């Protein structure tokens, strides 16, 4: 199963449409297989990001705020979306793999400096 997390630095990007980075991880039965890779796009584009989700056969998208039309598109393509997540993407991924990540979760922020 492939998981895509929209990213801005170490954090989940606060908006799907403004994300210019994505972290893609592959997991099997709740265990990561290999290191997650980061993809940097030339500019933020929700359309390009959605295309990437399709091309990479992503099963789960973990993101911040997302517009209804993009959310519906992903749902229609049978992709699970866990949205409105606040926190570091590595923590979000860990939580997801443990089955403990839910839409709207604010994760414990491990860094003192929260500036993006």
């Amino acid at each position, binding site marked *: 199963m492939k998981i895509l997390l929209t990213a801005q630095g170490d*954090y989940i990007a*606060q*908006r799907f*449409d*403004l994300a210019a980075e994505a972290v893609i991880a592959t997991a099997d039965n709740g265990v990561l297989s290999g290191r997650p890779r980061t993809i940097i796009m030339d500019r933020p584009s929700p359309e390009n990001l959605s295309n990437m989700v399709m091309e990479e056969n992503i099963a789960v998208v973990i993101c*911040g*705020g*997302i*517009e*209804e039309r993009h*959310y519906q598109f992903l749902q229609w393509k049978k992709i699970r979306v866990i*949205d*409105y997540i*606040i926190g570091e993407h590595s923590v979000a991924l860990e939580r997801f793999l443990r089955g403990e990540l839910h839409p*709207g979760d*604010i994760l*414990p*922020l491990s860094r003192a*400096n*929260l*500036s*993006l």
Partner: protein
Amino acid sequence: MSRKPLAVPGEVFLEDLLAGIPHASAVLDEGARIVAVNPLLEVLTGYRRDSAIGVYAEFILRSNLPNGRGQLFQRVLDSGEPVSMDGDIIDRSRMRVPVRFTLSALRLRRNSQAVGILVVLEDISQLQAKAKSTLFGDWTTDIIGHSKKMQDVFNVMPLMAHTDASILITGETGTGKDKIAEAIHRNSARGKFQFVKINCGALPPELLESELFGHVKGAFTGAVRDKPGMFKLADKGTIFLTEIGDMPLPLQVKLLSVLDDRSYFRVGGETKERVDVRVIAATHRSLREQVDRGAFREDLFYRLNVLQIHLPPLRERDGDIRFLLDHFLGDYAERLGKERQTFSAEALELLLAYSYPGNIRELRNIVEYCVNVCGKSLIDREDLPRYLFAREVGVGQRAPAPPAPLAAGREPREPKGEPGEGENWRTVEREMILDALRDARGNRSKAAQQLGLGRSTLWRKMRQLNLA
């Protein structure tokens, strides 16, 4: 995520303070983490205060502000200057909501380093929907002012809209007297009727009388048909007499009789015309001084001066210059279909230190010039109109203030060569060239050098401006 104490010196609870703001609002600390929110922000973002406090604000707001690495927050903290810009957020229902963001620095003492930021998010979806549905985007009623002096003006406007008494609006050229008059009219009971504006200084006396009161066919040469006049057109509505100080004395008598009797005779007419019109007058002159000189009737002055609004010049409106620069940048970018530009720190410093004798009209012209001339996303010092440099003052030092507001009783004196009523860049350019030629005693090479132009460019411009 440690909680910040919620009290500020004076033991005011921030949330009590925010509760009084009619828009979604939050207070951030120096690290741009949320310290306090009001219920409207909870509704807009979907985060309850308990969840939001201590979290970096951008995570909660989900805005599209150009705030990468928190640089916008940092700019407000460092400069202490407020920032206002339009953008959007994604709300908890996954809807994109257009919002006007206003970020203001919070200080413990005047001139001290900012210790936090007040963020106000005004939902402008209604405004945008309205703007899209009207042909001109509601440009005419766009009055912006966050300074204390303008807030005082805004506070009295609703009161003035609810009465029917005459109003006298005073203020320097370019301060927005027309817009205030129109806003009062639109929000009054007469709002659905006509708002008729006439410039008393723009027409010769005979023509002005005919324009205001109309004439009957054959009243004078060229009067080939009956004309109703502006007062009749404004019946049940409002007539706005701008530059009332320029109205000739004989017409002042007639105006007084209209105000007293609500009736008048058309030029050459024999029957009384009855009208129900509210009069709003405006002037950049001191009417009191004109009364003393015998150039304005005292009885008319008192009749017009029932309610008075004085519009402060831009240089006295603390913080508004920055708001207006941001507003017009966004506005022109949208009109020209360009990407929104920003001013460099150096350009901004110069613009904030300038005294704007032509007030908002001049500021708007400057921004329009910059947006048209500058092809980059950052408007730098060299993209600003050159006349700003000609009168540049030391960095951080305000330009000498022009004379006090005219309503305070002095004659207007536009600083030489700076834009005044009805002036635009062409006029300013003409003045600059004339100044340079005067300084160079007519020597075009020296004048061109002074202006930073080539001699042939100066010659071409002189031809265009009918100076050669």
